[in-house]
């Protein structure tokens, strides 16, 4: 049942019909539905707003009547969530705030809210007052689950759940809702959390190539070759599985690994070892003819030789630093009795 506000004729105590124009002086009114009947008994005596004279015929066209805005009847402690329950455009007659917006006229102020397009254009958050948000969250709480209390730090999460899967989702308006970047999946895992032995670890690092980060010991697999997110995730897990199982296999040609293929410097059977043994053998007093093998074992077992071995390995693997060079110097001095 549509009630037009303008269809209500207001009759004052003098019996004449006149239109309401603009905000009326305080009147005794009984709100009935959306229309307000007024007894016409005004507080101010005599100063009656002269409305426009009746135009044309009375019955033909119902003219719009300006009724007092809703804001006049709003109390301070009203339920605002009932006024703006959902997102709606700014209605100046429903918002009891003296808001002004726009570029001010010369030596003036920004325009008032009535008929202000600027206020209607911008998105408003009148439906999301703190009270409304609290009400919504109360209604949403039953659908939430708690985070397990035992996983309160990142270290524990890493320990129990080593694999991290990163994905993105996009929300935007445009000709299409889909975003092709949403299918990309990035899987990150630390190799220390996988069950690998030395050979498997080295082989896996070699197989993964650029995807392995030596500093953080993480393997990162990024998949975007499939059109759907779930497919990319399955593919990433498949790649991880294949890498893992392949790294445990030892092929026949892996026996041909030479010194140049080694990832780290190994002192055994290196020119450095040969040189030092030769030097130490020469340093021994002449005349003692012992077995070569025994002498070697004996020499290698010495503490100074072990120290020398450590310093050389450190130098080769970590590069030349102050401490490494100092260590090397000390070890050489001890060996050669300088």
């Amino acid at each position, binding site marked *: 049942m549509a009630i037009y506000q303008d269809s209500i004729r207001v009759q004052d105590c003098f019996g004449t019909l006149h239109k309401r124009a603009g905000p009326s002086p305080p009147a005794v009114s009984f709100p009935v539905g959306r229309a307000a009947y007024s007894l016409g008994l005004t507080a101010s005596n005599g100063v009656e707003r002269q409305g426009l004279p009746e135009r044309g015929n009375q019955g033909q066209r119902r003219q719009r009547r300006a009724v007092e805005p809703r804001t006049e009847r709003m109390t301070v402690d009203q339920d605002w969530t009932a006024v703006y329950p959902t997102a709606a455009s700014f209605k100046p007659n429903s918002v009891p705030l003296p808001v002004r917006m726009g570029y001010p006229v010369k030596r003036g102020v920004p325009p008032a809210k009535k008929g202000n397009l600027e206020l209607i254009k911008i998105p408003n*958050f009148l439906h999301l007052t703190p009270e409304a*948000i609290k009400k919504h969250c109360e*209604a949403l709480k039953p659908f939430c689950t*708690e985070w397990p*209390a*035992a996983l309160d730090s990142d270290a524990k999460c890493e320990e*129990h759940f080593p694999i991290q899967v990163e994905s993105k989702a*996009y*929300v935007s308006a445009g000709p299409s809702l889909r975003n092709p970047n949403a299918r990309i999946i990035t899987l990150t895992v630390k190799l220390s959390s996988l069950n690998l032995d030395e050979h498997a670890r080295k082989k896996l690092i070699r197989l993964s190539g650029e995807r392995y980060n030596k500093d953080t010991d993480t393997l990162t697999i990024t998949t975007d070759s499939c059109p759907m997110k779930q497919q990319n995730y399955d593919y990433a897990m498949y790649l991880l599985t294949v890498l893992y199982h392949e790294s445990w296999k030892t092929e026949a040609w892996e026996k041909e690994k030479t010194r140049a293929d080694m990832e780290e410097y190994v002192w055994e059977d290196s020119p450095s070892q040969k040189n030092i043994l030769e030097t130490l053998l020469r340093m021994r007093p002449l005349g003692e003819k012992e077995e070569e093998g025994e002498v070697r074992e004996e020499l290698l077992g010495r503490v100074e030789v072990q120290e020398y071995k450590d310093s050389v390995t450190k130098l080769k693997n970590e590069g030349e630093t102050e401490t490494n060079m100092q260590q090397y110097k000390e070890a050489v001095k001890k060996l050669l009795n300088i």
Partner: protein
Amino acid sequence: MTASMRIASVRLLSKTRHYFSSEVAVQPGARTVHHQPASTRNVCLIPVAFLHKGRAYGTQSSSVTVTEEPDLLFQKLSVLVKSHDKAVLDSYEFFATLAAKELGLTLAKVFEPPKNIERLTLLKSVHIFKKHRVQYEMRTHYRCIEISRITGSTSRVYLEYIQRNLPEGVAMEVTKTAIEKVPDHIQMPLWSVQSQEKQGSQ
């Protein structure tokens, strides 16, 4: 809804279910008391407040269904919102942070990445007048809200609430970092060292 949940659970059967049962074994005894039961439940999400049922009276008792599907765990949930209007983003940030606090989520970081201005210089006239140009610029403001340690169900609730109240002219990008256990098929190698030696000797 239950039918689609069943379908979802069939697809996820391959996933490990015993997240917390194995965790119970690892953790010291004092902690296990606070755990949820062995199979963590996933919560079906149709918040009644968002369903238009055409009833005159308010929301009925909430229809929360609990499924046996294991819940996802997100170590980090990063919500980046972009807009041309900074004031709208300010209000939206207030809304999102308050919602997160009300739902009991931990806000790790709320910050404003620097804005991005794209400028164009075009010819003012259709035909000639090369010396007279007009310049436009498009400013994109950003806001990032990072939430740490949130479960899958809660993240869906929060994200749906946030996204439904996304204002006009604002875009959102959500980055989720889920954490998972090492799956069963990667625990032990298929080919053990002994069988390799046998093959080598042969």
